[in-house]
C-alpha cells in the first residue's frame, strides 16, 4: 500500500495511556484533519508517526514497509516531514539560509567542507523558487528571529516542503498566528502539491473546515469518530464534546 498505514498504535507514559489502539491510513492526495480537545494526544500521535517518540505497541508502515524502528531523521529521509506545534527554525539564520540549509541536506551535501554553501547553482535555484512561491522576496535576507510569527510559520512550511516530502504532518499550523494572518496559512495549505498526503492537527475550526476532506476526532487518546466535515459538523457526540464550546456552525 502507498502511504502511511498505522495499526493498533498505543503509547503509555507510565500509567497514563495517551494513544490507545489507533488505526489510521494516509494515502497520496489525502487531506485529513485530526481534531480533539487539548491533551487528547494529537501531538503525541504526530510524534509517534514521525519517530520522535517510540510506541508502546502497534505498527507503523510506510509504503508497506515497517518504519517503527527508524529514527526521526531516517523517516524524514524517506519522505515523512512535519512542522512543529511551536515554530522551530534556525532563528539566527536568514530565511534564505534556512531554506538553503534544508535543501543542501536533502541533496546529501551536508558533509561538504571545502566548497562554499552558496556556490551550488541548483540549490540556489530551488531556494529562489520557494521564496517566490511563498512570496517571501522582501524578507529573504532577514533573520528569521526578526519576522512576525505568521511569517515564521510560512518559512517553516516552505522549509518542510523543501524536503520534498510525500507525507506532511502539520501540527497546529495556525496556532499563535494572529487571525489577520491566518488566511496566509490557509492559502499556503490549499496550494500544496495535490499528490502530497497531508495530515493537519488543528484547533482552528475555520481552517479545518476549509482545507480538510476527512476529519478524525481524538478524545483521550482514542478515535471517537471519523468522517467528512459535513458528518463531523452534524455529529451530536462531537458537537457536545468539542464544538459546543466553540460555537461553530
Amino acid at each position, binding site marked *: 500500500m502507498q502511504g502511511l498505514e498505522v495499526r493498533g498504535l498505543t503509547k503509555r507514559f507510565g500509567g497514563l495511556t495517551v494513544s490507545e489502539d489507533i488505526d489510521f491510513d494516509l494515502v497520496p492526495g489525502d487531506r485529513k484533519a485530526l481534531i480533539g480537545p487539548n491533551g487528547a494526544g494529537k501531538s503525541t500521535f504526530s510524534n509517534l508517526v514521525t519517530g520522535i517518540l517510540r510506541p508502546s505497541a502497534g505498527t507503523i508502515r510506510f509504503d508497506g514497509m515497517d518504519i517503527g524502528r527508524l529514527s*526521526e*531523521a531516517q523517516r524524514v529521509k524517506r519522505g515523512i516531514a512535519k512542522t512543529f506545534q511551536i515554530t522551530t527554525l*534556525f532563528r539566527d539564520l536568514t530565511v534564505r539560509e534556512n531554506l*538553503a540549509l534544508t535543501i543542501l541536506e536533502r541533496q546529501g551535501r*551536508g558533509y561538504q567542507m571545502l566548497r*562554499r*554553501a*552558496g556556490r551550488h547553482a541548483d540549490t540556489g535555484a530551488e531556494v529562489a523558487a520557494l521564496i517566490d512561491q511563498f512570496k517571501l522576496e522582501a524578507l529573504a535576507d532577514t533573520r528569521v528571529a526578526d519576522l512576525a510569527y505568521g511569517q515564521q510559520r510560512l518559512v517553516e512550511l516552505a522549509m518542510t516542503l523543501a524536503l520534498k516530502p510525500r507525507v506532511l504532518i502539520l501540527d497546529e499550523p495556525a496556532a499563535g498566528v494572529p487571525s489577520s494572518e491566518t488566511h496566509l496559512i490557509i492559502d499556503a495549505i490549499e496550494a500544496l502539491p495535490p499528490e502530497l498526503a497531508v495530515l493537519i492537527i488543528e484547533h482552528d475550526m475555520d481552517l479545518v473546515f476549509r482545507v480538510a476532506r476527512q476529519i478524525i476526532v481524538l478524545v483521550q487518546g482514542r478515535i471517537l469518530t471519523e468522517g467528512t466535515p459535513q458528518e463531523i459538523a452534524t455529529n451530536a457526540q462531537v458537537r457536545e464534546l468539542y464544538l459546543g464550546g466553540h460555537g461553530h456552525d
Partner: protein
Amino acid sequence: MNTTMKSWLPPLALLALAVVLYFALPYNLAFLTRILIMAVLVLSLDLVLGFAGIATLGQAAFYGAGAYAAGLFAIHVWADPVAGLLVAGLAGAALAFVSGLIVLRTHGLTLIMLTIAVASICHEIANKARDVTGGADGLRGIRMEPVLGLWQFDFIGKTGFWYALTVLAVVFVLLTLIARSPFGLSLRGIHESPERMTAIGVSVYWRRVTAYTLGGGIAGLAGALSAQVTQLVSLESFSFTLSAEALIMLILGGTGRLYGAVLGTLVFMWVHHWAAANDPFNWLFVIGGLVLAVVFFLPRGIIAIPTALKRLGGRHAGT
C-alpha cells in the same frame, strides 16, 4: 570592497601583526611561538564549541594526544616534522572520534564532566606508562630533523616561529572554508536548533561526532607543534588548566568568528605574561578581572569592540 575581501581583513591584519612582532621582539620568539601554538588549540575549540555548540572542558585531551604522538613518532619512527604533524593530527582525531562516540550521547553538564574525565584519564595513563611517556618527568630526547629538509630548528626559535605561524595560517584558512561550507552551515543549524536539524533529516549525533573529530585533529596539530618546537612533552599537556585556559581565551576573543579565537589567545597570553612577570602571586586576579569585564561588557568577546563603540557613538550622536 566586497564582503569576501572584507572578511579576510582581520586575519590578514593579525598575520601582519605576527610578522611585526617577530622583528620587534627578536628575543621573545619562544613566547610568541607559544602564542601561535595556543591559537591553534583555541581555534580547534572554536570549531567544537563556537560552531558545533559542544561545551567541552577537555580539549587538552587531544592536544596531549597529539603532543605525545608527535614526540614518540619522532623518537621511535621518523623525526620529520611534517610527518609528525600528520601523525599527531590523526592521533588527536582518533581519540576525539572514539571518546566522542560516547561523550556526545550526553548533553549539558554530563557532557562537560565526561570531557573532563577523558582528559584526566589520558593524564593518568601518561603518568602511569612512564616507560613509554617518561611519566611525570616528561617525554625527553625529541630531536627533530629540519622542516621539509631545509630549515633546522634553531635555539633562538626562528624556525619554530615560522613553522608554527604557517601551521596556524593553514588551520585558519581551512576552518574559514569549513565555516562557509554546507557542513559549516549545518553546524550553525545544530547550534541554533537540534530539533529542527533532525526534522530536516540530519543525524545530529553524527554531525557532532564529525565536528568533534575534526576539532580533535586540529588540537592534535597544536600538541605536535609544542612537542616539536620545545622538544619536550610534559603531563601538563593533558591538564585541566590547559583546557580551561583555552576556553577562557576563546570567550575573551569571542566564539564563532575564527579571528576572535586568535585575538583572545593573544590578549590572554600577553596579559598573563605581563601580569605574571610583575606580580607572580596575583596575576590570576588580573586575568579574572579581564574575563569578568568581557563577560559583562562585551558578551560577544573582544571582536565585538568595534560594534560596541559604534553603538556607543551612535547613541551619543542621537541624544
